[in-house]
């Protein structure tokens, strides 16, 4: 949290302060508005104003049964649809008492890691274009095709997969999928390693992002940041490690942390995670049972008792939890989605205060924020 330079006062001299509406129709805001007050080149205050894409997903979930909720609940982050369904499926499995087959667990891990990469590439592309690096927009969007192709082979849809289901996954891996996956993941890993020289080692990028928007470790914890933002500040918190779900405890991977907590570290952590994801996928493809069921057969309209559960997973934007309350009806009584985006957005006013206007997109998008997910 950088201090305001001592020469600049907060909103006292009115004619010096200019209010800029960054968004909602702005190439640098996503579907939200940031009300930025600037004094010259410095931001004196910043007020994020989300809610332009609010859809009431939580309320909608109360009128649909456990199965038909699935296509809806993935809408907030269609780029990361496997991961947002993951805690829902885990929770429903717990309240319905379903036992997921081992092969399905591995497939789930593979799909969610692939989807994490897809999301991260999309995020990275936008980060690139926010920094004015058009190549960094085009390359990740292109390389994303590799993974989307894999996911499409697996689930039959390119983005809105609706693949996870309580009790397993919808369908088994197609034949030959392992080989194609290994081949494309290897190539993909080679590709994203090339981002280093053009993006992460680029001196101009480093000069722009290092030491901007520094989130200290204590602040990160007290503001409740999660995911890459938290890990960039030096807190080693990864749900996959700390609270392993499905088969993550069987797999060999590590959670990446960086100490500095600036925009650069926040932008680098997802990239390191992508490399880690490639490792996880390869590992999972080695350990996956070669055959077996992938889905538990469900009753048409499953009902649960008066139970409640909270499950969380590590999504592309940090810990993503779902709190499901059932009151014995086919529909859940309440589905509360706790997303990383919103928790990271809380850091924005603290980080932007006293920064330069040119740092605004760099800091804002490095928070790993997805407007639609935050609005739900």
């Amino acid at each position, binding site marked *: 949290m950088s201090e305001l330079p*001592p*020469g600049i*006062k907060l909103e006292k001299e009115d*004619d010096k302060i200019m209010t800029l509406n960054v968004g909602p129709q702005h190439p640098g805001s996503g579907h939200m508005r940031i009300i930025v007050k600037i004094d010259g080149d410095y931001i004196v205050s910043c007020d994020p104003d989300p809610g332009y894409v609010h859809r009431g997903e939580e309320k909608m979930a109360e009128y649909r049964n456990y199965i038909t909720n699935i296509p809806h609940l993935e809408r907030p982050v269609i780029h990361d649809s496997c991961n947002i369904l993951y805690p829902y499926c885990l929770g429903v499995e717990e309240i319905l008492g379903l036992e997921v087959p081992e092969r399905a667990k591995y497939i789930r891990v593979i799909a969610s890691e692939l989807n994490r990469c897809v999301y991260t590439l999309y995020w990275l592309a936008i980060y690139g274009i926010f920094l004015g690096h058009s190549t960094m927009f085009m390359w990740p969007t292109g390389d994303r095709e590799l993974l989307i192709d894999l996911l499409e082979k697996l689930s039959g849809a390119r983005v809105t997969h609706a693949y996870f289901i309580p009790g397993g996954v919808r369908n088994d891996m197609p034949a030959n999928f392992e080989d194609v996956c290994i081949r494309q993941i290897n190539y993909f890993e080679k590709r994203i390693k090339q981002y280093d020289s053009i993006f992460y080692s680029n001196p101009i990028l480093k000069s722009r992002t290092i030491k901007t928007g520094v989130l200290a470790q204590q602040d990160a914890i007290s503001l409740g940041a999660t995911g890459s933002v938290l890990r960039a500040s030096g807190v080693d918190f990864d749900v996959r490690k700390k609270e392993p779900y499905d088969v993550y405890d069987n797999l060999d991977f590590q959670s990446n942390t960086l100490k500095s907590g600036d925009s650069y570290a926040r932008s680098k952590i997802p990239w390191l995670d992508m490399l880690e994801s490639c490792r996880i996928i390869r590992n999972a493809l080695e350990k996956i049972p070669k055959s077996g069921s992938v889905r538990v057969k469900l009753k048409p309209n499953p009902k649960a008792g008066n139970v409640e559960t909270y499950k969380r997973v590590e999504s592309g934007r940090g810990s993503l939890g779902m709190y499901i309350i059932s009151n014995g009806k086919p529909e859940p009584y309440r589905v509360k989605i706790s997303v990383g985006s919103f928790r990271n957005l809380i850091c924005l006013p603290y980080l932007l205060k006293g920064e330069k206007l040119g740092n605004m997109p760099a800091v804002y998008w490095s928070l790993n924020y997805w407007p639609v997910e935050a609005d739900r």
Partner: protein
Amino acid sequence: MVDISFLVISVLTVVCAIASLELRSLIYGSIALMGSLLGIAFFFLLLDAPFVAMFQVAVYVGSIAVLILFTVMLVKRELIFTKIEDPKRKYIGVGLMLILIVGLGSVIMDSGLKSISTHSAPIDFNEIGEDFLTYYWPALVIMALILSSSITGALVLARRENIENEQHTN
């Protein structure tokens, strides 16, 4: 006799000079001032002083006018467009201007200047540089001192002073 380019340029210069003082908007006034300065530069070209003409354009239009424009833009919008002046004072000013033009003009018309014309070759601009570095070199050094004092002074004036006794704080 004068020729047409001279007439055009002098009309441009004089009209722009009057406009720079009389236009309601300060921004347009600055643009008119730029026009007047450009007109002077054209005069310099007419007088075979290309080096000075280009210096005039580069320094006056390229930097002084930019600074003026920039400072005008700082001023609140109302102030750019208001023009406070006394009508009485204005009439006196116009009278003064006319008296000056007529008086000085008649002085000059009567003097021996009107017969002067030249057929000698124009000055090569390299002589200016030679002047600078030989005869006038102390003036060049003094010029550097002027520029340095003006920049230090202007920076000291223009900076904000919100920090008390800042020399000891950093």
